[in-house]
């Protein structure tokens, strides 16, 4: 009988181990949200096992990379285009790929990283600067040759930014430090003091040379780009995940509590703030209804941001919400299929909205649809992109 009990224990253990596999990082289970970028009339969407090139005009797929899904390869970083026309994207397989944007074929790959690419690389005339979760920033030339690498004490999930006035790049790391690095040789120019929390959002760069970055220590900070000194710091209601966006001397950003801020970049004073209202399930919501993860999109008219529960808000620069879409309630009659009306209830929004001429592109997570194109009234312009099974 006792051996029977052992059998029961073992069988239960097997079941439990199967459960662990769900959280163990299988490539097919999304472990991040889609990375989306626009170049000309093409949207490049990195999600799960492929990078898709999608025609912005009609939402049709041009190509996908790789052609055949491979369980060992997955992509979540927004692809970036080099000045010589290479599409660069990092994978969870620890490989950085250069893809021909016309054909979707691989040009070259860089395989020296020892962990995932979570943040997008920065590309400029000086080269390709790819942050990784192996605690190194890799600088490559346009043929994929390693120029230098810069180590930090923690994973690097944030896309670095370049300083237009010098040959510097700024890197926010999860090790709580912001670094200024010489782009030509990878030498450290300066390093901040411990900023109190991890940073995973790209810093914003003000016209006066001030850097702005949010941390997991419920703070937003202004940092001098000359020497890395903290100019001011303000407390937020929750972790600041995405970097702030800046326009006309005002910072715009959200936090994981669901609060959205407009803040004076010169001193950190709040200009206006939208407090979260997570209980609001009405068809027209004016306050954020869930955590705000990514950087908002600033257009001429409105500030667009998404909340994790699947909502898209458009707020005027005076702080008044005039655009609201619940992705689960989107009118999909444009698809022509009476059965194809609702987005899955599990669908969430983490990725920033992206502007493509007059369309707002939205890439949800945990939905069948991978890309929505909305007009300024919130109506789909084309039937949402669902990749065909190949």
């Amino acid at each position, binding site marked *: 009988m006792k051996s029977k009990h052992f059998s029961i224990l073992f069988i239960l253990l097997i079941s439990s181990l199967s459960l662990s596999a769900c959280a163990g*990082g299988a490539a097919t289970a999304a472990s991040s949200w889609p990375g989306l970028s626009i170049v000309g009339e093409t949207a490049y969407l990195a999600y799960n096992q492929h990078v898709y090139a999608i025609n912005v005009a009609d939402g049709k797929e041009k190509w996908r990379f790789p052609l055949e899904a491979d369980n060992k390869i997955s992509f979540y970083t927004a692809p970036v285009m080099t000045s010589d026309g290479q599409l660069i994207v990092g994978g969870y397989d620890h490989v950085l790929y250069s893809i021909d944007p016309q054909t979707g074929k691989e040009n070259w790959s860089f395989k020296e990283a020892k962990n995932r690419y*979570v943040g997008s690389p920065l590309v400029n005339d000086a080269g390709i600067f790819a942050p990784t979760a192996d605690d190194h920033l890799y600088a490559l030339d346009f043929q994929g040759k390693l120029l230098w690498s810069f180590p930090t004490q923690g994973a690097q999930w944030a896309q670095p930014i370049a300083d237009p006035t010098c040959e510097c790049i700024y890197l926010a790391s999860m090790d709580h430090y912001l670094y200024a690095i010489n782009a030509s040789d990878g030498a450290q120019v300066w390093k901040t003091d411990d900023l109190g929390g*991890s940073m995973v959002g790209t810093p914003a760069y003000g016209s006066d040379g001030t850097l702005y970055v949010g941390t997991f220590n419920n703070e937003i900070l202004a940092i001098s780009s000359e020497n890395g000194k903290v100019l001011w710091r303000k407390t937020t209601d929750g972790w600041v995940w995405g970097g702030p966006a800046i326009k006309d001397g005002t910072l715009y950003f959200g936090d994981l509590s669901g609060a959205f801020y407009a803040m004076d970049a010169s001193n950190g004073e709040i200009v206006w703030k939208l407090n979260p209202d997570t209980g609001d399930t009405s068809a027209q919501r004016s306050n954020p209804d869930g955590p705000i993860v990514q950087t908002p999109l600033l257009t001429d008219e409105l500030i667009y941001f998404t909340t994790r529960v699947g909502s898209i808000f458009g707020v005027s620069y005076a702080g008044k919400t005039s655009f609201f879409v619940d992705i689960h309630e989107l009118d999909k009659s444009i698809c022509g299929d009476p059965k194809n009306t609702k987005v899955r209830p599990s669908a969430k929004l983490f990725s920033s909205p992206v502007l493509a001429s007059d369309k707002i592109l939205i890439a949800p997570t945990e939905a069948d649809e991978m890309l929505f194109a909305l007009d300024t009234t919130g109506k789909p312009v084309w039937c949402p992109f669902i990749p065909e099974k190949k």
Partner: protein
Amino acid sequence: MNFWDLLILNPMVNALLWIYSVLWQNFGLAIIVFTLVVRLITYPLTAQQMKSGQAMQEMQKSKKWQEIQKKYKDNKEKLAQEQMALYKEMGVSPFGSCLPTLIQFPIIIGLYQAVIRALAVTPIQLLDLSNHIYPFINAAKLIPLNNRFLWMDLSQPERLVVLGFGIPVLAVLVVITTYMQSKLMTPPTQPGEQGAQMAQAMNLYMPFLMGWLAYSFSSGLALYFVASNVFTVLQYAAMGKLQWSNLLPGRK
């Protein structure tokens, strides 16, 4: 929030993070100590399980049990009735040893889900973790967790590089300790005893299954497997219940 998160996973994740914060921010040590603490807390269940198992085994060796097996071998319904009567008579609960095991089951799942959740190596995992940290844990200071332990990155499958070859040392340790644990804890069986063959088969396959999981998944999980196996063996040794003779060659 669901009950699983509220009652099992969140307390475990936060306990793990708290242990990590007081153990010099060493996640490897935190996993080992956390496993030990959980083993100690669940000790009464382990003891109860062993006691009931032993009582059951003794009852099955008794003359009365053997007699009814023979007598009613062609009448399963009657056999079941007589067995139940014997259970009652000898004061043995048929579920006495499997109930504590079942109670431990959610704890075992919770343990390694907590390890995976705390490691939070992808954005969605980290966002998820941010939702489950208690206010008294200084998450901003602790994140990112220091994944380094000895030669391992606990968030990655482990390989010790020797002369250019990656050797999965931890996976091998998992196979060895799982095999030892199952052999040492399996009571001596008599040929033909009910379930004995099944237990032997499990003893053979389980180490390889566990080893494969340790080979494929984060080494933090593999470290938990090894720690858990070692503590279980030590716990049984302290209670004098190990079947050392099972390790001898020729014994099945």
